[in-house]
Each structure stands twice: as C-alpha cells, then as structure tokens.
C-alpha cells in the first residue's frame, strides 16, 4: 500500500473524484498552476485544465457564492479557502444561502458544495493563520462538518464528503499536513461520515479529540499509563452530525469524560459534546466532564504553544478526571 501524508491523500482524493465525475470542479485562490499554497491541489491543473481547477479573483464570498450557483446548476464544486481564517467574508453565503437552500426551496434546489479549509495553530501563524472555527459552522442547520486527523481518513472522508448530498465543511489540520503519514490505499475508498473511531482503547476515562489535537491526546494517554490511568481516545472525524453512539458507548463504560479542542472554550464544540453526554449518560458519570481547549482570547503568536491544549495540559486533565 502506498505511503501518503495528508496533503498527498487529499490530493489523491480530489484526483479520483475528478476523474470519476466531470461535474467536480475546484475553485480557490492559488489552487491552479501553483497547486495551492499548501500544495494540496498540485498537478490537478495540468491534468484537468483551467475550467475545472480554477484560480479565482481574491474574494471568498465571490468564490462561495458562485460555487453555490454552480451547484444549483448541477456541478459539484469543491472550494478551497486558503486558510480557515479567511472564510468569514463567505460566511453570509454559507450560512444564509448554502446551508438553507434545500430547506427554503422545499428540496427543489439542494445546493451541494464542499468547502475545504486548513485550520489550526502551531505553525507560527498568529491569529489570522491559526483559527479552528468548527463551532460557528456546526451551529448552522444544514451543514456537515468534518475534521480528519490521518492521511487515510482524510482521503476516505473527502471522497464521502464529495459524494454526500449535503454541503460539507472539510477542515484540514495543517499542523499535521505532512506529519500525519501512513498507508493509504491507492484507489477509491470511503470512510463513512458520522463515524468516530476508537483509536486507543482504555477503561478509565474517555477522551474526545479531532484533527491535530488527536495526537496530543494520544501522547497524553500514553503518558497517563505510568500513573495507572488507561484513557480511551476517540477520534471524532466527523464533527457534525457527530457519532453519538460511539461516544456514549465509551462514556458509559469509563464514566469519565475529557474533551479536547484548539478553538476557544466558550460556545466551543466541547460545550455541545459535554451537554450531549450529560443529557444522555448523566447517571453513568462518576466525575464532572473536563474541557481542555484554547483560551477565550484571539490566537496569539509568540505564546502559541501556551495557548494550545497540548499534551502537557491534557495529561493533568486525564488524571484529574480519574482522581475525582
């Protein structure tokens, strides 16, 4: 099986989808000749030409708005937003248009667009190249939100996202774009949306994580062993609709919950995950759930490693969850 990093795996998924279906088109800034600032679309311009791999004017609302129109016509646009931090000019098109089209047209105009965007910190990006904005999109009815952590999942989930009938925000953890490497099958395959994966089984505490923070959670879980704590680490993979069954199965066994995400704490996805668990498994809980997250500040530059919920902050949370 070929070895791929996440960039190569996503590139491969795009190529497979475009070969299989000529309605699939890519729009974005610098996605064409240069193949994207992270090289995710490298080689696609040469293979599919400039009517299917389109360098657009510098306007995110223009990109998403026209992609919505293309989708209404019957194409399958896969949009790249260069950094998730620059998605906000398109927020109106995403929230008020893309997400609502199926509903407001009584199903006559399902608008299906995939929006890919690199997310997250730890790359010396300061607050305009580090945001991890899943929560404001999860909050919007009609959007699906995905965030893979491995090359294998990135390819399989992107192929699912492109085939899915609904709009999907596909957030790519750029800190591990090259580090997340592994065996990835050469041809087409899918990883189903709405399925989480138990990536490390354990008895004492459930850890929910995704994207780049999955590796931090795994690191903390392996260090917790020395303290007699066996943490079960779940990679959510699809953030919304979340795989509630896998989460509840785990929490009912461990009775303890730690949620990790890079985004700020308040109204972050962790708040929703904790609520879901408390509502459904309250009597199984033996300790208060703990959120290990970014702080409620803009993402800082010089102190970024102190901002992020890395292993050194997750480990004490695991021990505390089990102690209390």
């Amino acid at each position: 099986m070929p070895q791929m990093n996440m960039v190569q795996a996503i590139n491969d998924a795009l190529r497979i989808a475009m070969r299989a279906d000529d309605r699939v088109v890519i729009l974005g800034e610098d996605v064409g000749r240069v193949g994207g600032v992270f090289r995710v679309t490298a080689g696609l311009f040469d293979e599919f030409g400039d009517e299917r791999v389109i360098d657009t004017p510098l306007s995110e609302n223009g990109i998403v708005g026209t992609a919505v129109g293309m989708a209404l016509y019957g194409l399958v646009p896969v949009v790249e937003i260069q950094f998730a931090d620059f998605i906000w000019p398109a927020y109106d098109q995403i929230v008020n248009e893309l997400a609502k089209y199926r509903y407001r047209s009584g199903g006559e105009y399902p608008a299906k667009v995939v929006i890919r965007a690199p997310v997250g910190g730890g790359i010396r990006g300061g607050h305009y190249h580090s945001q991890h904005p899943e929560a404001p999109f999860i909050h919007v009815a009609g959007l699906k939100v995905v965030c893979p952590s491995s090359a294998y999942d990135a390819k399989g989930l992107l192929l699912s996202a492109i085939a899915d009938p609904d709009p999907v925000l596909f957030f790519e953890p750029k800190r591990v774009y090259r580090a997340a490497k592994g065996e990835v099958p050469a041809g087409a395959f899918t990883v189903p949306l709405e399925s989480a994966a138990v990536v490390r089984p354990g008895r004492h505490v459930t850890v929910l994580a995704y994207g780049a923070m999955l590796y931090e959670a795994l690191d903390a879980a392996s260090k917790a062993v020395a303290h007699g704590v066996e943490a079960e680490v779940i990679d959510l993979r699809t953030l919304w609709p979340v795989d509630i069954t896998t989460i509840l199965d785990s929490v009912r066994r461990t009775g303890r919950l730690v949620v990790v995400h890079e985004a700020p704490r308040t109204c972050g996805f962790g708040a929703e995950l904790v609520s879901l668990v408390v509502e459904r498994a309250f009597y199984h809980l033996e300790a208060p759930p703990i959120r290990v997250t970014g702080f409620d500040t803009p993402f800082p530059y010089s102190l970024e490693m102190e901002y992020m919920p890395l292993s050194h902050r997750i480990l004490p949370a695991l021990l505390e969850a089990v102690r209390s």
Partner: protein
Amino acid sequence: MPPDDGVVRVLRDDLTLDPENDPGLSDAEVLHLYRHMVMTRLLDERLVALQRQGRIGFHVGSLGEEAAILGAAFAMRKNDFIFPCYREFGAALMRGFELGVFIHNMFGTAKDTVRGRQMPDHYTCRRVGWGSISSPVGTQITQAVGFAWGAKIRKQDVATLVYFGDGATSSSDFHSGMNFAGVFRVPTIFFCRNNGWAISVPVTRQTASRTFAEKAAAYGILGVRVDGNDLFAVVSTVRKALERGIRGQGATLIEAITYRMGGHSTSDDPNRYRGSEVLEPWASRDPIGRVRAYLEKRELWDGAAEERLIAEIDKEFREAVAVAERTPLPPLESMFEDVYERPPWHLLEQRAQLLNGPRAPSPHS
C-alpha cells in the same frame, strides 16, 4: 506590462523631471526619500536572511515597490492617517516608527507594541498616524473611509490613505469603500499597489477591466494611474489627490503600476509560477536605481555616500536585532490583556489556570 496610456510619469530617461507634474521636491527631500528607500531594501534583505536562519518566523517584503510605498506616505501630512496593507514597513519607519520597535515586532518580544500577539510585520503605531495591520485582504479599505468620514463629520482636517494590492480590488471591502467614499465625498486616497500578482495569481484573474483606475468611474470618484516606480510621479499624484480631498472634492483611486520583484513572502517560491524573464523589463526600471542616477547626475550622491549609508543602517539593524534577541517573550498574562478593556471573570479564571498549570515544551515547537 499594463497599458501605458494616461500614466503619470515625471522622472525622464535623461534624468530630468517633467515640469508638468514635478512635485518640486527639495534636494534634501529627495535625499531623505532615497535614504529610506535604500533602508527599506536593505532591511528586506536582512529580514529574509533572518527568516532563512530560523531566527524570525516570517517576512513579507517590498522589493521593487519602494518608490510607490514611500512616495505615497511622504505626500501625506502628519495629521493624516495611513491604513496599511502588510507590505509597507518602510513607510512606517519613515513616518517615525522606530526601527528598534519594529524589530521587536519581527521577533514577537515583550517589547513589541502588539506584545507578540500577531505575526511579524503586523505591527501598530498610532503615534505616527499609522493603523493596525490585519492579514485578511481588503478589510482596511472601508475602515480608512470611515476614519476620514468621521473626521469630516467632526469638521477636522484629516485625510486617509489606504494601501492595498491588486488582489484586494476583488474584495467586497474595495467596492464598499469606494462606494461609501463616493456617496459621502470622503477624503480618502485609495492607493492600489498594482504589483502584477496576488501570490501566484496574475492581475488578469482579478479584473477584466483594462486598468484598475477606471473602476473609480463607477463610484463617481476620480481614478488616476501613476508609474509606481517613479518616486517623483508618486509624490506628485498623491499630493494632488490629497489637495482634492482637502478641498472637499472627495476621494481618489490611484493605481500605482509597479512590480513585485520577490516572492509574495518568505513562505512563497515564485519560481513555481513565473520565470525570471518576466523580471527583466522591470529590473531596468528599478525605483531606487532611478533616483540614485538622478542624485548622482546632480552630484548629490556617490558610492562613498552609499557605503556610509549602508554601514549606518546595518549597524542600527544589528543592534536592534541583538536587543530583540535578548528580550524575553511576552509574559503569559499578556495573552489575556486587551481582549477587553478589563478582563471579565472567565478570562481571569483562565489566566489563573494557565499560570498555575504546566508550561508548554517550547515556543513554536
């Protein structure tokens, strides 16, 4: 090459100035501008080297655009405000932003005016009428209009100049900014650095208009084109726009035709999308070389003066770097300051959690 008609030029090939648009700069003023252009270029080189050595994280330079950047700022008055893009540190320094403070920003130290919160080159200096730099393209354009409009409402004599690139003309803020400035007759100068590229995307992907300046017509404001590699033409054009604004004649869109001679930033490799041959026609129109030739012909400058200047700048730069490298990173508490004027309970709680918790392995690891 963009179309050549209607482009304001002053410095002629024979190194004389076209009297029609000659801004009438004194020798001392030309020397002042020249020194700052040389300084800008030298600092660009040194900062790129620091980035390559891993000592700073990033730099976005101005190679080839020095005359456009410095000439525009020079034409504005002290009481005017400049809303920068991210490529104009040379103009901030010329307006009085201290080199040492700029270098603290490049290293994100505790002495950085924005306390290491932003990437390098994203500094702020209100004291010299300079805005705060944002990465999102175009956002400063509407803000520059609002600032000057506010001053107009309060009957204050303040104009604004806003820098942005050709790529930014595709943003909604560009259109909204021009439209508001037109409707409310706001004294804002929209200074578009048409440098040919938005990272790898050429200007032909930003507009089907022949020129950027002609977009002004749709908003009822004046649009002019200027040779952005001609320092004298830039000063003259911006001055005229400023005078119009002050007289209540409203905003001007200036398209400064120049060229981005380097990569977009230290993160970019331009060889992936353009051959070096595209640089040739621009190399012979180097904005600094043209002014140097003008000064030398008038016996105001020579090789020895150049060497002295470079040695001076180098010394100041090396000292600033040494100081910044000795300066600690901002204190942990600073992360929670300036989110609000006073931190609410939840930030105080989170601050305590950070201070009492374990330390991260190392910054940017």
